[in-house]
C-alpha cells in the first residue's frame, strides 16, 4: 500500500505515502490507549529485528509495535565487535532470509547497509538506521509529533541543532521537513557541516534561532560517530549550541523542543530543562516522540505487511 515494498530512506517516499502513514498512525495510536493493547492484524507474520548496533529505544519500539499487531517478532543483536573484516555480512543476511521471515528491520553502523539488504531479497526491509545515512522511521515519528502539536506542517520554522554531519536523524529529518514545506535551518559549527551546502540555511549559534523557531530540534552529540574529534570542548558546545533555562524561556509561545533521545543531559540540554515543571514543561515533547514512535511503526508495519 506504500509505493515501494521497503522503507529505506526519505527521498523515495511519495507525498501520498507520508499522508497514509500519518493518518494510519492516528488510528493505531488509539490501540495503545486501550486496556487490551493488541489487534490481530498481523497474526501469522514473522518480523525480524536485525540490530548490528546497540539500541534500546528503536528496537523496543519496533518490538512493541509488532506485538500490538500480533506479529511474531524475533530479535537478533550482533555486537559491534563481531563486525570485523573477514566475517561476511552478506552470509549473515542470507542466513536470516533463509528462515523465511516476512519482513526485516535492520540497523547497522555502516551507511548503505539497508539498501544492500534490500537488493538481496524480495521481502520488505525497514531501515532502522544505517550508519550516518538514514533513519526514516525516526523522521516520520518526528513529523507525526509535530503535526499533532501544530495541526499543520507547511510554513513551520524548524531549527535542527547540533552535529549534522554525523547524524542520520538530522539527514532524514531535514529531508522530510523540507519535503513537507517546512522552513528548516541547521544550527551547527563548521566542523559538523558539509563544505558545500548552499541549499539549506545555516547558523552557527542557537541564539540566532531561539526566539523565532516553532520547533527546536536538538540533536544528540554523538562522539562515538565522529571519525575525528575536531570540536574543542563540551563547555564551548554548551555556550553556542546548548539549551538551558534562559534560552528555553526566550522561545516563543507555542514552540516546542524535540530530541531523538537518548539525551546527553548537561551537554545539549541541561538537567533543569529536562526536569522543568509547570507551563514550560509543555514545550518539551521528547516523551511524546517516543509514544508517537510506536504508533508510527505500527502504521508502517501494517501498511507494508497488512
Amino acid at each position, binding site marked *: 500500500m506504500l509505493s515501494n515494498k521497503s522503507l529505506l530512506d526519505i527521498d523515495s517516499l511519495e507525498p501520498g505515502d507520508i499522508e497514509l502513514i500519518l493518518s494510519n498512525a492516528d488510528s493505531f495510536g488509539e490501540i495503545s490507549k486501550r486496556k487490551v493493547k493488541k489487534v490481530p492484524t498481523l497474526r501469522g507474520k514473522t518480523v525480524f529485528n536485525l540490530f548490528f548496533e546497540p539500541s534500546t529505544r528503536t528496537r523496543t519500539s519496533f518490538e512493541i509495535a509488532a506485538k500490538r499487531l500480533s506479529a511474531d517478532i524475533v530479535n537478533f543483536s550482533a555486537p559491534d565487535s563481531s*563486525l570485523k*573484516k573477514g566475517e*561476511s*555480512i*552478506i552470509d549473515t543476511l542470507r542466513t536470516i532470509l533463509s528462515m523465511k521471515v516476512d519482513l526485516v528491520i535492520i540497523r*547497522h553502523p*555502516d*551507511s*548503505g*547497509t539497508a*539498501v*544492500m539488504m534490500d537488493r538481496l531479497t524480495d521481502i520488505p526491509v525497514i531501515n532502522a538506521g*544505517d*550508519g*550516518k*545515512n*538514514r533513519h526514516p522511521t525516526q523522521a516520520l515519528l518526528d513529523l507525526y509529533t509535530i503535526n499533532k502539536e501544530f495541526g499543520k506542517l507547511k510554513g513551520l520554522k524548524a531549527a535542527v541543532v547540533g552535529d549534522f*554531519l554525523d547524524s*542520520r536523524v538530522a*539527514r532524514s529529518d531535514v529531508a522530510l521537513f523540507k519535503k513537507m514545506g517546512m522552513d528548516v535551518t541547521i544550527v551547527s559549527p563548521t566542523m559538523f557541516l*558539509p*563544505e*558545500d*551546502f548552499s541549499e539549506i540555511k545555516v547558523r552557527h549559534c542557537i541564539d540566532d534561532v531561539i526566539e523565532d523557531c516553532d520547533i527546536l530540534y536538538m540533536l544528540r552529540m554523538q562522539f562515538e560517530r565522529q*571519525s*575525528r574529534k575536531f570540536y574543542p570542548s563540551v563547555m564551548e558546545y554548551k555556550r553556542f549550541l546548548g539549551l538551558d533555562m534562559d534560552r528555553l524561556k526566550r522561545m516563543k509561545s507555542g514552540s516546542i523542543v524535540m530530541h531523538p533521545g537518548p539525551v546527553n543531559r548537561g551537554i545539549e540540554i541541561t538537567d533543569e530543562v529536562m526536569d522543568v515543571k509547570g507551563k514550560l514543561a509543555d514545550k518539551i515533547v521528547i516523551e511524546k516522540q517516543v509514544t508517537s514512535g510506536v504508533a508510527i511503526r505500527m502504521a508502517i508495519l501494517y501498511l507494508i505487511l497488512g
Partner: protein
Amino acid sequence: MDKTENRNILIKGGTIIDPAEGGVFASDIYIKDGIVTEIGKNIKAGSTAVKIDAEGLSVSPGFVDMHVHLRDPGFEDKETIESGALAAVKGGVTAAACMPNTRPAIDSEHTVKYVLEKSIDAACRVFPVAAMTRGLKGKEITEMGLLAEAGAVGFSDDGKCVGDSRLMYEIMRYSKQFGLPLILHEEDILMSGDGLMHEGRYSSMLGLEGISPLADDLMIARDIILAARSGAKIHITHLSTKSGVEMIRKAKKDGINITCDVTPHHLFFNDSFLTSFNTSLKVKPPIRSEEDRQALVGGIKEGVIDAVASDHAPHLDTEKNTTFRLAEFGTIGLETLFSASFSKLCGEEKMSLPGLIKLITASPAKILGIDAGKIEVGRLADIAVIDTGTEKTVKREDFISKSKNSAFIGQKLKGKVVCTISKGKLIYRSN
C-alpha cells in the same frame, strides 16, 4: 587465447594508427616469425599464414598500461602475472607496468627478478615498478641503484604516499642518478583519514565519510615544489582533481620535469554514481565531482595529461561484497581500458582516435622509457586491432581477470579490441 600460436600473420585492409606522428593510413601488415617484416598495400601471404580481415577496423600499436596491480607475489588469489597478462591482452594491452605493493613488496633485486622471470612466459610484456621505500613503509629509501640494474622501469610507493617531506626530497635527488621516473600516488593521509568517497554534496547526502580533494592537492603541490628544487622526473599517477590539473599545467609551463596520467574510471564516472553504494566504485583516489571530471577531460584535450592508465586493482568478491565501509578500494580496468576511454573521450568528447591511442601507447612508453607503443618493420609485433563501431553493455561474465570487481559492469561502452598480437603472436581474437 592461445599463447603458443606461432604462425605468420597477415593483417589485411586495416587503417594503421601511428601515435608518434599522429598519422593514419590504410595499409596491410605482415608478421613473419613474430617480427613485422612488411607494412604496405596489397601484401600477399602464403596459405599457411593466419589472415586477419581488418577491413573497416583500426590497427594500433599494442597498448601500454603504465599502472596495474598484478598482485603477484603474495595475493595470487586475486590475480597473477599470468592471469593479469591474459586480461591485459584481451584489453589490447601488450605492455604493462606493475606496481610494487605485493607481498613481499617489489623492493629488492630478488622480487624485481621474480617478476621479470615470471613474465617471460606471460601473454604480454611486464615492466616492474619498484618501491621507493622499503616495504612501502615511507621510512628508508630502497636500493634504487640495484633495483634499476635489475630492470625496474620506475619507482613508486603506490597505494601510499611518503609523508616525510625530507625523505621525499632525498628520494627525488637520488632518483636523478638513475634517470627513472617517480610514479607518485598523492595523498595526505591525515587529510583523507577514514574517508570512503569524494567529500562533497553526495558524501554528505549519503552519510559516507569524505576524502577531500585537498588530500591529493596538498601532496601534488608539495611534490611540485620538491621537483622544482631537485630536478627529479616525477609522474603524478591517477590524477583526480581539478586543482591538480591546474597545478600540473603551471608546473609544466615552469619547466618542471612532470607528467601525469588519469584512469578511465575517473574520466567516466562522477560521485553521483555512488548513490547506488556500488562498492566497485570505491576507489582511491575517489571518483570525484562532475567539475573535477570535466577538468580531467579538459586536461587531456589540452595536453596537460600525458597518459591514460587503468590502475587495474583486482579484489576478491568477499572483499567487495560487503558494506561500503568495509569494502576494499579499487576496480579492475585492463580489459576495459580502451572501450571506457574511447566511449568518453572519442564517443562523447569527439576526440580523435589517434589522440586517444597516443595516450595509451607512445606517451606512457616515453614516460617509462620503454621500447613500446609503435609498429615498425623489424620489430617484434605488438598490435591491437580495434573495432570502433560496436556498443555493448559490460557484463560480469565478460571478464577473464581472476577478479571481477569492475566499476564498468552495467555500463554501455563503445569500441572493442578485436584481436591482439603480443610478443609477435596472435594471442587474443574475439568471436
